[in-house]
């Protein structure tokens, strides 16, 4: 399965991150400089091709609604399997949805999880004229859960 992260309708932004500061407090000295001269702006994760049975989980939509959407997709009969993707903070929720689906299916659904790392880009905008605009990359974890019907034995 291709690693796919969408940003259009269902994008996943780690909400817990602090604003205007890099998340990883790696080097204190470098960060102080950044605060004075740069503003951090996060870019959207890279958009990748999306199939019809890909579901991107976010933290904004109601949990129940997302669960119902997955359930509906499975019940419709159009897809034998769906892929639930979650990035960063939404990993928890993706797992939760998948488990709930499985639990409610009386054993007819199975799940298979896959993890990956997504490279995200941050822009550092200079506040002063002398500063060059910089970009930084950081990595974030993502999960891709395949939920599929088991064959009736």
């Amino acid at each position, binding site marked *: 399965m291709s690693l796919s992260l969408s940003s259009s309708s269902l994008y996943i*932004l780690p909400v*817990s991150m602090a*604003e205007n500061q890099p998340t990883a407090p790696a080097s204190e000295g470098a960060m102080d400089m950044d605060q004075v001269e740069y503003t951090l702006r996060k*870019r*959207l994760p890279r958009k*990748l091709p999306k199939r019809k049975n890909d579901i991107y989980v976010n933290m904004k939509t109601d949990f129940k609604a997302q669960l119902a959407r997955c359930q509906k997709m499975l019940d419709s009969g159009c897809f034998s399997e769906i892929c639930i993707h979650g990035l960063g903070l939404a990993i928890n929720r993706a797992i939760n949805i998948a488990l709930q689906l499985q639990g409610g299916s009386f054993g007819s659904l199975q799940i298979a999880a896959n993890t990956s790392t997504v490279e995200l880009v941050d822009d550092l905008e200079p506040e002063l*004229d002398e*500063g060059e605009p910089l970009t930084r990359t950081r990595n974030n974890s993502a999960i891709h859960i395949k939920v599929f019907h088991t064959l009736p034995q």
Partner: protein
Amino acid sequence: MSGVSRKEKKYAKLMRNQPSNITFSSTDQMAGRSGMGPSESQATNPRCGSFTSLQGVTGGHVQQQQVGSAQPSSYGDHRRSSYRGGFRGYRGNSRGSCHGYSQIPKSITATAFAQARAAEINAMIKAVSHKSGSQFLQSLPPTMRRRAMSHNIKRLPRRLQEIAKKEVEKVSQLKKEQSKSKSRKARRRHGSLLMEFNRRQRKNIWLETHIWHAKRFHMVKKWGYCLGNKPTTKSYRACYRSMTKQCLLQDLSYYCCLELNGTENNLLKALARLTSVDAGTTFASVACLSGKCQGSLVLYKADQYPEKPLGPVTFLWRPKTQPDSSSGNRQLWIWMHPALKMDLLTELQLVCQCLDVPVPEPAPNECKTITYVPEKQTEVVGLKRKQQDKAGEVVIPEKKIIGNGTRDPSTTVVWTSLTNGITIEDLTMEILRYRLIGPLSHCVIFEAIQAADVPKNSEEREETKMYCWWSEYCTQPEKMSLHNHQRDILQLLLGVASPAEISAGTVLGLTVGDPRLNMPRNRTTAIPDLSQPEDLEKLRDLCLNGIGAEYAQSQIWDRNVRNVVTETKISEQKLNQMRSKLLVPGTRLDLGSQESKIPILLVHQPGKMAGQEHTGWGSGWDILIPKGWGMAFWIPLIYRGARVGGLQEGAKHTQYKGLPHFPDDFPDCPAGIQHSVETKKELIDKYNKYPPAKRPNYIHYGTMTPFRCPWQQLVEEWEAHIQAGDLKLAVSGKEQELKFEVQNPNYKHAGVHENKASEEMSNKEKPSEPDEEMEEDSESVTILERNTGCKNGKNVITQDTPAESGHVSVLRSRKLLKQISMWCRPSSSRGQQTQRYRGPAQVPLAADAVKSIIGSYPRFLIWVRLSLLKKGSPIANATICVPSKEDLQLLVSDPNCPGPQESKHRDPFKQKCKALKNKKRALPKVPETTTAADLGITSVSGCGVNLVQGLWPDQIRNVISHCSRLAIGYVSQGDFSLTVGCGEALGFVSLLGLLHMISNQPPNHRGLALVRNPASLQYRFAKINIEV
């Protein structure tokens, strides 16, 4: 007076065919008006000899009635009724005495009587026999009339045919004389149409897409342009969806471009006076200076940074041609809104020391505004046209206006400084700018344009003389390699799905082929091709580092190339003709080296940058095209699935991005002030069109200014308010103490109880209305009082106007904005997490910090975004208020509560309005001859213009404490936001008011405010966000 004259005319028309001796009714009419008629009537009327003066007239009337009843023709009826009217006017009150026996004369002289009757009968016969105008049909009884008779006279009875024939001839002759205008077919012929279009665009500039827009958009005339406001189709949501998921196209060619030429140092030195480092990066920012990306900033009047801004601009430096030549001239384009252009131009001339000296250089010739399409081409092409139909007459085809049609060609557009060598050039309408918004804008552009082909061998170059600029350009190897690189980047960018993934403001220069040649046959939707590109590494590098500065180079910067490109454009007609000669119809037309090569510039527009939510929303690309090529690019873009929006969609785009929209949301700029005055006038006119019962009474709602935002009063009153409570603020050291110690009488009262608040309110209103109450008591409003009232009002206004001219400014210091933005957040768990990362630069919210800001920025506004917590959608000019402690408690106890309510206000002006109305009603009864009273009345009505029922008169006081909650600001644009899914408002609050509010709020509710629409009593909770 006009009524009277109209009556007279009617009367004269009526009396046209009367015999001369029947004149009594004229005396009637005169009597009705002046009261001196009867004696005259006696003198002229022979038959009245034996009557008394009164009876003479009444008798005449009675006789007329008799005649009328004896011969009941329609004509007689008509006359009778009109006479009766005249009679009534004369008799007036003593009408009752006319009836009864006294009217019947005791004796009549037979000869005189018969003579009079004979004359009348003659007149009647004459009137009946002579049919005027279209009346020949009316002589037939209605049962015999037929519709077809009016155009076929043979259907008439034969006795009437003669008359009818005459009439019809007369009418047709008249028509012939009148119809000078040509037939529709003639008018729509290409030449005459072009002439008509050229005539119409002398007044307002037309964009090149004007005709296209005029067929599909509601057009408005604004800022000297004809612009599409919104599509005529229902597409509000469809446009939003295209912005979010597809692609919205907008013609921004009305934006003006000024080109500055000069050495880098001189330019930077001059321009530094207009900007400040405090408000972010300036013209000198490294990234922009290299030409790698576009910058944007707000310019100020020279050396007056925190005050007197001019407006926002975007700018673009031309990349250096040779990297080492730092001494060479640099080119800078400043793009701005047309409402701002004249202000900025004068300011630029000032700082660059460019005087209004016309340059003797070739400039006026070269950048001539109207470029003519070469005439010979059209003659060759126009084979079908019958140009020789008017034999001998040489038909000079009208030339199409490209560019600015309103400007006089002799006006200077270039200004040069003698001291530092800076040249300013006005490039208005020389370069077109299209904006594409949305994630698909990326693929729409890259499908529509294709990089120009490079001529393969030298012979091809020689054969074409016209397209020399490209073949010349191709001879230089380094430029060729640049072109190839640019083409590679174009290929690479196709693999990027959305413009949000590219670094903001990136510029890419390109030379492209004619986009008309590879148009799809039908309208298609461009879909990103996301099959994994071959070189992922390169793509990643591109996304990380952006496009290099050297690739931003484009020949569009060169004026000569631009002109050549504009002039050598192959016309649509010629292109179609060539297409028709293709062997296989519908295949791509291959022009080879004849194909035009157009230098363009692609500028990336960042989407929503500030804030947490929806980052990258509404990002897209701008294309800059040389003039003349507008439609050639427009249609291909639309054929790739772009939807077109107008001004309204542009405003929505900025609104959802949370940015201020230029003329509307810059209350401190001259253009913004003018705009607010205009909108206010428009809205008041609209308000006045409704009857008082069908429009909101804003006084009841406690809204003093429903059509504008009184920024000036707001900041002044807050300054006074804070100064009153300043001492206590200074005493308290910590915020918690401060919360209790700031004791402002207004604030104390504010949220307690509604009735108490309204009591206080009425107390407050009292000083402003002693004279009004007097007037309410006394029924008779004396004119003298009115006049003095009017004078007072004028005095107030004159006091206000000098202050109005510019004490209010908007806070744009980034450091301060960041600080206040941090303070406005509630200190929930999330907020504390941010506190952990808070470096030494962050100042905690404390009294001394607040005080220092208050001291240094007393009269400042701050741009805020309000998102409503629950229901409600705010609209423009809604009030932003401070919630009272009870309100916050209410919110805690019941999270679903809609919010507090304002109690209904009393309308102190209602009586006054009524009195004025009665007065106006009484006006026409007053005789016109009395001059002195007349003057007084007009002045009253002049004063009363300001007094509209339901609106506060112009002089307003106490804007902040007029209602039960303290006002801190106003909404300048608000709507239900389709991006967020709740009501959202953008507006300004007074800096002092905001600081006062947040320093008095408990930390977990910090940044909560109330919003109330102008025509509503309901306050809604909203969260204040300051995004930097």
